[in-house]
């Protein structure tokens, strides 16, 4: 190995060493520049709805319907979650021989949300709130049930049983008021 080659090797070795040292220092400096913020918590919003405070709306005790008689029941829908929601309301498990002789109207304030027989108020054709139900808000609704004035004796001692369901969905990023199902 000639002397000049030896010098070059040494130079290169020194250069590599210097670069490694610089890299190490830089890395160290970079590490030192980080600042830690611990225990960051991301909490999810909740969508939670309540219907009439869990109390039965039509308990059957004060009805005694007869042709052309109307009964009115007030009930509430409350947003007990942390997110603003839209809600929809419908009936399920509708049973009994009064199905076609009772007309239901559902009002939110003065606005008529539904007008028809019980079996028509189903998941595919629900009442949908037009306004956002803000978190903590309770909205008062009214169910007006009228027995068809042409109902004859076949409907005496008749009954209608049903479940009333309310679904809520977040209002944010949901301009079309789309529910899951």
């Amino acid at each position, binding site marked *: 190995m000639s002397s000049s080659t030896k010098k070059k090797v040494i130079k290169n070795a020194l250069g590599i060493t210097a670069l490694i040292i610089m890299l190490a220092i830089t890395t160290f400096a970079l590490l030192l520049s980080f600042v830690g913020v611990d225990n960051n918590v991301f909490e999810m919003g909740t969508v939670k709805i309540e219907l009439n405070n*869990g109390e*039965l709306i039509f308990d059957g005790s004060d009805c005694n319907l007869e042709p052309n008689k*109307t009964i009115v029941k007030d009930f509430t829908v409350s947003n007990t979650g942390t*997110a603003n929601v839209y809600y929809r309301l419908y009936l399920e498990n509708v049973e009994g021989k009064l199905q076609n002789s009772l007309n239901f109207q559902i009002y939110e304030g003065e606005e008529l949300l539904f007008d028809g027989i019980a079996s028509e108020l189903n998941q595919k054709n629900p009442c949908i709130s037009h306004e956002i139900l803000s978190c903590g808000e309770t909205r008062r609704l009214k169910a007006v049930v009228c027995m068809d004035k042409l109902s004859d004796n076949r409907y005496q001692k008749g009954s209608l049983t*049903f*479940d009333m369901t309310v679904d809520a969905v977040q209002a944010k990023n949901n301009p079309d008021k789309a529910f899951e199902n």
Partner: protein
Amino acid sequence: MKETKKALIFSGFLLVIDLLLITGTTFAWFTDSIVNQGNTIVTGTLMADLMMDKDENGNYSSIIDGRDFIFSNAEGGNGYAFEPGQTAIVYLAVKNNGQLNMKYNIDMDVTGELAEAMEYALIDDVKADTFDAKDWEEVKEKSNGQTGNVKENISFFNDKIIYAISTPEESGMSYFAIAMHMKKGAGEEMQEKSVTINLEIHATQVIDETNNE
């Protein structure tokens, strides 16, 4: 070439999966659902009963479904065998046995030759111990015009409401009396003749102030 084709198919498949995942993500929202279970709406019942104070002692008992007769000379009946000039009065009541307030009409369906020799009168709101009339003329006077010759079909319309037992206004009963009188001028030819009267009560619902509107 074969390998390229495979790679293309695999890429296409991945793209479809990606699209599905994106779609799935787009349609995810927070939701909640609650059910108010066991709602019940029931209709009331409309049920009328016809009662009679057979012994005129204030005890009314049901006479529907052939349990008793209003005017009958048969065994167990109230012993009325008419003769000219005779007046017979029976004390009746319509009872509301249902859950709905009601009104009623009374229809009398008459058959038999003796009918032409008979007159009738219907007196509202009377019981045996509250009704007093000396003769047929006085009975007719107290009937407020609900009187006449017995004929084929006679109807009395009553606008009075009989409240269901559960209401505060309850009495549940509407009292009245029916009087029958054989005309004094009825001739010999009426002997052994008879008249059959079927009394029908037609009850109907009353939509009143209890309507929960």
